[in-house]
């Protein structure tokens, strides 16, 4: 059974700084997802990573996947206030399940 662990669970950053959120998973997963959730809202898909070494970037966010280490990272570059949200990673197998980590609540301060 796939288990997904994220760290840190809480992250307070200054604007303009860089930081990384880590996502470890326990068994084989053939895809790794990153989602964003704003307070009071539902989840929005950010990235789907399908293979070892996959890297995807959107604006100040970059996600990568190392299947050998069972590790995905979400790197934040030069954080801005608009990035404040909760970020979730999730792993899936066989194209039809999706299990989530506990989430990282990110606060970007001026």
């Amino acid at each position, binding site marked *: 059974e796939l288990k997904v662990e994220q760290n840190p669970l809480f992250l307070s950053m200054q604007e303009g700084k860089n930081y990384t959120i880590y996502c470890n998973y326990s068994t084989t997963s053939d895809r790794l997802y990153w989602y964003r959730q704003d307070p009071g809202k539902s989840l929005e898909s*950010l990235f789907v990573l*399908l293979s070892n070494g996959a890297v995807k970037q959107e604006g100040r966010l970059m996600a990568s996947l190392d299947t050998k280490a069972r590790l995905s990272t979400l790197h934040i570059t030069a954080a801005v206030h608009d990035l404040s949200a909760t970020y*979730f990673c999730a792993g899936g197998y066989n*194209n*039809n399940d*999706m*299990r*989530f980590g506990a989430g990282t609540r990110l606060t970007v301060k001026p």
Partner: protein
Amino acid sequence: DVKVTQSSRYLVKRTGEKVFLECVQDMDHENMFWYRQDPGLGLRLIYFSYDVKMKEKGDIPEGYSVSREKKERFSLILESASTNQTSMYLCASSPIWGGGGAFFGQGTRLTVV
């Protein structure tokens, strides 16, 4: 605009009641999911379905059942609601192939009193 629609945003039910949460998607997705979200625990998978009439247990299926009679609709049933089922329930759908993530509904905040 693609959509996953949950039938209610807020529900208040009494202990012991049978509760139905409905979810409809308009994207012809094969996969549908039900999660509950609790502070500090992330999203926990209750059930998922990859085809009509097919269902798979997730990590916390106890006290829940599901129904998928049509491709676009996935229902979550609380057979006898209990106070520990007070939570935010999220429905999602995704295509079985391809690299896209899932689309989520707006959530149903269920309170069992």
